[in-house]
């Protein structure tokens, strides 16, 4: 077989596999635009008259409120994690801290601690304090869950700031705050952005804590979607529409920030 033919064949195989992998997402988006009777029919249809019925029904089930809660939780968690992570990551990279290794293993270990190990006391304490079903409380918990990852990622970016720049700033008499926020931080903004993105994605998608720590007022989108499991009758169109709306923000953000995503997902271990 000649080289170019073999090349095109591999390309063809690649595309077939990629499209097969993407198919469930494509099908979800398509089903969201089908009238219910078409979506739930035994024979799948590729061509149909599009309808927004599914989206309408999802909104009728109060999806807007759940989405708003999700936005509040994910944005607040991101702010909390980023604000606390910047100084910590800076201390662990440019400034010398005693037992850097210990501090780092502490940070990593909290990420490796299963949520199952902390959820019971959190539930009991919040219940006693009357703070269950509070979206900001959920957000703060999300902030804590994602803080270690944020610190780790940002540290790997801070490490790349040439120390001479910091030294020069110190010689010029810059204080600690100025040194971090005016000198170092602008150089690591992409790193801060990717830490923020990862925190946002994990918080937006989180299901376990959201199910347990919220009930109605602060319920976020994932447990709302989970409630479809007990649905009766035809509901594939509305389910697909709701799932599409819920997944879309993260999909778009992830598509836009593919490069940062790699480093974020590997917690900064890979450039």
């Amino acid at each position: 077989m000649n080289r170019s033919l073999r090349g095109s064949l591999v390309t063809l195989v690649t595309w077939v596999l990629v499209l097969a992998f993407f198919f469930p997402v494509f099908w979800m988006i398509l089903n969201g635009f089908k009238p219910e009777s078409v979506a739930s029919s035994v024979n799948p249809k590729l061509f149909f008259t599009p309808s927004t019925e599914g989206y309408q029904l999802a909104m009728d089930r109060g999806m807007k409120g759940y989405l708003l809660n999700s936005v509040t939780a994910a944005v607040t968690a991101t702010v909390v994690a980023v604000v606390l992570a910047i100084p910590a990551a800076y201390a662990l990279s440019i400034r010398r801290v005693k037992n850097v290794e210990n501090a780092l293993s502490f940070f990593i270990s909290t990420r490796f601690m299963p949520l199952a190990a902390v959820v019971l006391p959190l539930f009991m304490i919040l219940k006693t304090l009357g703070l269950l079903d509070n979206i900001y409380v959920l957000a703060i918990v999300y902030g804590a869950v994602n803080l270690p990852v944020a610190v780790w990622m940002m540290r790997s970016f801070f490490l790349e700031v040439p120390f001479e720049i910091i030294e020069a700033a110190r010689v010029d008499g810059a204080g600690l705050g100025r040194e971090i926020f005016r000198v170092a931080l602008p150089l690591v903004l992409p790193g801060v952005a990717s830490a923020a993105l990862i925190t946002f994605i994990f918080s937006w998608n989180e299901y376990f804590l959201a199910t347990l720590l919220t009930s109605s007022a602060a319920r976020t989108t994932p447990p709302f979607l989970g409630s479809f499991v007990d649905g009766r009758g035809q509901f594939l169109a509305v389910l697909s529409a709701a799932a599409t709306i819920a997944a879309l923000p993260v999909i778009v953000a992830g598509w836009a920030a593919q490069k940062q995503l790699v480093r974020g997902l590997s917690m900064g271990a890979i450039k």
Partner: protein
Amino acid sequence: MSVTELDAVEAEAATEPRRVNKKELRAARGLLLPAVIFLVLLTQVPFVVTIVYSLLRWNLLYPNDRGFTGISNYVSALTSGDLWPSIVATVLITAFSVILSVALGMLFAILLDRPFRGRAVARTLMITPFLVMPAAASLIWKYSMFDTNIGILNWLSRTLGLPVVSWSTEHPMLSVVIVLTWQFTPFMMLILLAGLQGQDKGILEAAQVDGAGTWRTFTWITLPHLRMYVEIGVLLGSVIILQVFDPIAILTKGTGGTKTLAYLLYERAFIGLDVGQAAAYGVVTVILTIIVATVALRTLFKVFMAGGSR
């Protein structure tokens, strides 16, 4: 700072009683403190409380019958017949999903590493499953892929004249593994693709000039180079999937050997209302995770201390 410089600084710190700039040290601690306090309050303290709970006789159905009970929650967990199947389910689901997603991720990384028309689009489509909300992914698979009536897989079966399969009830473990593999393959692909693209092109060309075939170049040069990336992928994937809950809650509700530790705890605590018992399962989950993570951490530290900074 390069690795050697770091080492030098570290060595200096170890030998010389470093000209400790007390002010600087205090400042560094001050910078770390808020994050550490926050984490201790929200993760370490609750974990200690979980250990305490696990030593208590405490069922919310009998609020007045509460007291210290020693290790009896652990004993009954070990003898109840729920714990081992749950550990097996957790480990099997994690192992299968991680192995399959690394294998598939490697395949896709290799396919997407070569230049072809529309590569950026293909790559973008490929990472999407990882971005889809896990609850949404589980639901979409349960109904539009696995369902006996309206699922695409069974439509394919019918079209090909094969028997119809009720995936999530007849093959619960396989269904969960399929969904997790589908979600985590892009995760592995991204990490491995970064590894492939970080290869020294000169060495690859040299190998080609020396007449090493594609396969030999791959096994002798590319695979050893990718080892670190595979390790990072495996360990991060394992630690995340060990906690798996969403697909269980949505696809199988813990039936058919898929009751993972996280789901078991959820059942005991929030359906059975047995706090003491559930806490014992929580502690067991942590121990299991620590076993996996110790191996994992060691790897990550090696990577991190050696190549991570540069």
